[in-house]
């Protein structure tokens, strides 16, 4: 039970990172390898701010600032690539992620930091179904669930959300409807940055935040996104949770050091055996350039 719960917790983080990948993938068809850096930034900024203001305000500001960073990335880099081949975008977003990491290293040095626990402290625990867990786990799970629900409402009910879906379905038809496709790309970068930052805040008390913590999160999230079928939100959630649980189980049978190896093996296996993912259709998988 304990393993399962911790698996679900890390899994839900991966799910959020995967959703961040999907938001940008759906409007632009590119994978933003700087997604993990959004989590790091969210965590770092809120840690710095929370010494001078109450925690909720610090988190809100961190989310806003990271969304602004997402906006700048789109404005300064993505917009100027006129012939966005997959390779170019991959190289560019990896470049951006390195840039952000280096800047973070200068601003926050190498020290490992963390936000205070939202409720109680590291020894507080609540018991659920016989397992004793930290209340922070509930925060993480709750936030993930909230993000998924709100995103579904956004895409399903609001005109802006529908316009973003229209852009990913058929970009030319969308602009013939008067939708500014470029602006939708900007919104998708801001949205995935904001979601990443929020996730970065809620996990910080448990996983700690360091200037380079985004990379491993990005790899796990990427695995979940591919596993669930690129572009599919529900697929990302299920795949994220599955990977979390697989990792948790692997810790109980293999040495801890193999944890990441298990995920990477999984990623390679999926890419070889079923690149369209668990839930993506084969046809769609064949069309994708990944």
């Amino acid at each position, binding site marked *: 039970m304990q393993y399962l719960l911790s698996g679900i917790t890390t899994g839900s983080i991966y799910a959020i990172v995967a959703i961040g990948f999907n938001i940008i993938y759906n409007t632009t068809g590119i994978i933003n390898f700087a997604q993990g850096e959004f989590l790091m930034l969210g965590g770092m900024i809120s840690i710095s701010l929370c010494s001078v203001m109450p925690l909720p305000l610090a988190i809100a500001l961190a989310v806003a600032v990271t969304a602004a960073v997402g906006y700048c990335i789109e404005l300064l880099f993505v917009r100027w690539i006129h012939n966005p081949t997959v390779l170019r975008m991959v190289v560019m977003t990896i470049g951006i992620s390195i840039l952000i990491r280096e800047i973070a290293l200068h601003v926050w040095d190498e020290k490992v930091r963390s936000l205070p626990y939202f409720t109680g402290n590291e020894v507080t625990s609540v018991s659920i179904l016989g397992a004793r867990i930290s209340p922070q786990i509930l925060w993480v799970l709750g936030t993930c669930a909230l993000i998924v629900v709100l995103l579904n409402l956004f895409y399903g009910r609001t005109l802006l959300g529908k316009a973003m879906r229209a852009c990913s379905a058929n970009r*030319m038809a969308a602009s*013939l*409807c*008067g939708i500014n496709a470029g602006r939708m790309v900007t919104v998708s970068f801001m949205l995935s940055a904001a979601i990443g930052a929020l996730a970065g805040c809620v996990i910080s008390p448990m996983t700690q935040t360091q200037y380079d913590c985004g990379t491993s999160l990005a790899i796990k999230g990427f695995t979940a996104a591919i596993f669930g079928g690129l572009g599919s939100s529900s697929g990302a959630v299920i795949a994220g949770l599955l990977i979390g649980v697989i990792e948790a189980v692997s810790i109980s049978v293999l040495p801890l050091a193999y944890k990441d190896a298990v995920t990477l093996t999984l990623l390679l296996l999926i890419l070889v055996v079923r690149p369209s993912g668990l839930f993506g259709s084969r046809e769609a998988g064949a069309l994708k350039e990944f």
Partner: protein
Amino acid sequence: MLRIRNLESGYGSLRVLKGISLHVNSGEIVTIIGANGAGKTTLLETIAGVVAASSGEILFDGRDLVTLSPERIVAAGCSLVPEGRQVFAPMTVRENLVLGAYIRSGREGKAAVAEDIDAIHRHFPILKERDGQLAGTLSGGEQQMLAIGRALMARPRLIMLDEPSMGLAPIIVRGIFEIIGRLRAEGNTILLVEQNAMASLGIADRGYVMETGQIVLEGTARELMENHDVQRAYLGKEYRSIGEGRG
């Protein structure tokens, strides 16, 4: 309403339109016919701003569209129903229509959009039945109706249709042309590109014949229908005798 002068455009180094001039008056149906690859789609997409013009002007109610983005051109009142329908396949029929009204939604609110959807349903009752169905699962004829309905949702003053009969059974084609006639009766102005020259000249007021990026012939629909070259090339009528044709 629409006046195009010496329009040139193409793809990269490929010149497709080589100096097109034409005009459309308010309330008219004007048709452009021409063989595959003549550049008809390119012309409409250049007017709609999807393809960039390299020279010439496109005056729409006196305003030059050449430098505007597709979004601004739609907002100016000029909508294109693209070749191959291009509906938003993973979205419902209703969502497609709602998105058609995207440029108006901010100003006019949900009630006005819902009213217009009702009006579209009166034109195309089948779309009402399919309201919650995914657009990608509609039949070709239904998708064409949806594409036209979606363009109408923007309340355009000029509607451009690119081969609405493509790939449809004759009976469905007749239905589509009936709708085009009704749209004109309601005061719409229509620029119609068609391979089906018989049907489109039958409904149009005037027409242009396009060949390899140039207008080679223009006139009233009647004149074009009676023109021997047009008859031979586009209406599939053989000369009754060589002598008569030359004479």
